[in-house]
């Protein structure tokens, strides 16, 4: 398989997405605001609490990283896929001399790296550098727990991008089958935000829920990399986390491919 067309679409879309600087600035403001609310709410829960399975600093790291890498989440199907499905141009997608799944996957990778990159850098700088400078160091993002944790965090974050792209592409395929993005966006978007730890950090869920949360795919989108960063996952637990991310990427890519060939074999082009 030649890589060039996929790399080309990745590069073009990446550059396109980097154009939205005003949107990124507005988004940055929203993320700070949201992060501040979450931090204050969880601080209130921690006040006077005993035997919490996560320190407050680890929770802070989890929240700030969550705000920084918010756009990495599989929020919605690709708007361009939605458009081609509705207009009937999906037939043109099939005419391209490339593998449609890989092509859409490459576009998803661009979407899940360019926008998060624009958003993450100012958020990380604010949470890790500016907060301590203005005397709010008790609320700041701390440094990663050691060099090994830092390296493994980067690996895990890369796997999170691959996993998020696999879920996004699966959402694109379901959109193609259902002719509408609405249902899949609401269901997968809602599940992903909660089950990745976006509302409540997963370790703070009740103990009986922990085994269930550990084996589901959405943990790999945020929970696993963030806990590696703060040292909440260490040793074999880190390796298990990385393995879980990798297995889910393989499974979801396989499911996405199978569902795509099934859908495309009976796609009916709407309009002309």
């Amino acid at each position: 398989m030649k890589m060039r067309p996929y790399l080309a679409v990745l590069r073009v879309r990446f550059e396109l997405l980097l154009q939205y600087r005003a949107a990124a600035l507005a988004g940055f403001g929203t993320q700070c605001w949201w992060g501040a609310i979450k931090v204050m709410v969880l601080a209130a829960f921690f006040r006077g609490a005993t035997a919490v399975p996560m320190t407050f600093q680890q929770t802070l790291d989890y929240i700030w990283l969550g705000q920084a890498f918010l756009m990495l989440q599989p929020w919605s199907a690709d708007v361009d896929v939605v458009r081609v499905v509705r207009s009937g141009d999906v037939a043109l997608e099939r005419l391209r001399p490339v593998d449609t799944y890989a092509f859409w996957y490459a576009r998803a990778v661009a979407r899940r790296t360019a926008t998060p990159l624009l958003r993450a850098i100012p958020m990380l700088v604010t949470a890790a550098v500016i907060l301590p400078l203005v005397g709010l160091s008790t609320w700041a993002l701390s440094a990663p727990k050691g060099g090994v944790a830092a390296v493994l965090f980067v690996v895990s974050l890369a796997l999170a991008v691959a996993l998020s792209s696999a879920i996004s592409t699966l959402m694109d395929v379901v959109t193609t089958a259902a002719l509408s993005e609405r249902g899949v966006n609401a269901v997968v978007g809602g599940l992903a935000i909660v089950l990745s730890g976006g509302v409540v950090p997963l370790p703070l869920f009740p103990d009986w829920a922990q085994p269930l949360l550990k084996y589901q795919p959405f943990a790999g989108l945020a929970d696993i990399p963030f806990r590696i960063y703060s040292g909440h996952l260490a040793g074999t637990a880190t390796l298990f986390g990385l393995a879980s991310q990798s297995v889910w990427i393989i499974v979801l890519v396989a499911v996405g491919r199978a569902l795509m060939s099934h859908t495309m074999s009976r796609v009916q082009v709407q309009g002309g």
Partner: protein
Amino acid sequence: MSAFRLYLRYIGISLRGQMQYPAAFLITSAGAFFSTVIEFFALWMLFVRFDDVDGWRFEEVALFYGVIGVSFALADAVTRGFDLFGPQFVKTGDFDRLLVRPRSTILQLLGYELRANRVGRLAQGMLAWAIGMHMSTIAWSWREWAVLLFAVVGGMALFAGILVLQATLAFWTVESLEIANTLTYGGVEAAQYPLDIYAAWFRRFLTFVVPMACIAYFPVAWALGRAERTGVPDWLLPLAPMMGIVFFLASLWVWRFGVRHYTSTGS
């Protein structure tokens, strides 16, 4: 025709239009219900872990959550015209057409659309509200109900006021500014909890700048019999939602100022 009858006519047409796509209505409503209920579920899980937040129990927080959720869902359903004002009316020049009609621009924009699928979020708010009331040991009388319903009216007015201000800004910026989302969605997020858990500066902002405290925190704390937590006299708390209405009236005054300064884009 009276303004109210005309408004009913407007939303009747809007609803009939949306019901032409029943599947889309059902999917988006059910989707909104599902994705918001799962967030409420996560909040419950947090209380399983921590028991209480600064002395507030789950059923009490559920009532704050429900009241603010219901207010926002209702306001969000009726203010679509203001939400889309920049791109739909200023950028296109369509606002000119509203101005030549012999009816108020506010009425016409309110009549732009009644979003039926907001029923999904409304249902989530009502569910949280019901759980909060059901689990509580308070004997609910008509007085508490009256104050909570007044809180919803005040909340709708406050959120509508924020949307009117967002639309007013579009007279100068043309594009809609997403910054209002930090006040609407962000306000909901913050006011889902009793505000005394926050830092003082944040609580003051949500009391005196955007009076989010007046439409959920004060009346609900009063209904729960926890007035002492607010630091405000007991008799004043049930009247607090009035501030939402005052905010709305003030936003209408700013809107009229904006309309006077409107220059058509000419497109």
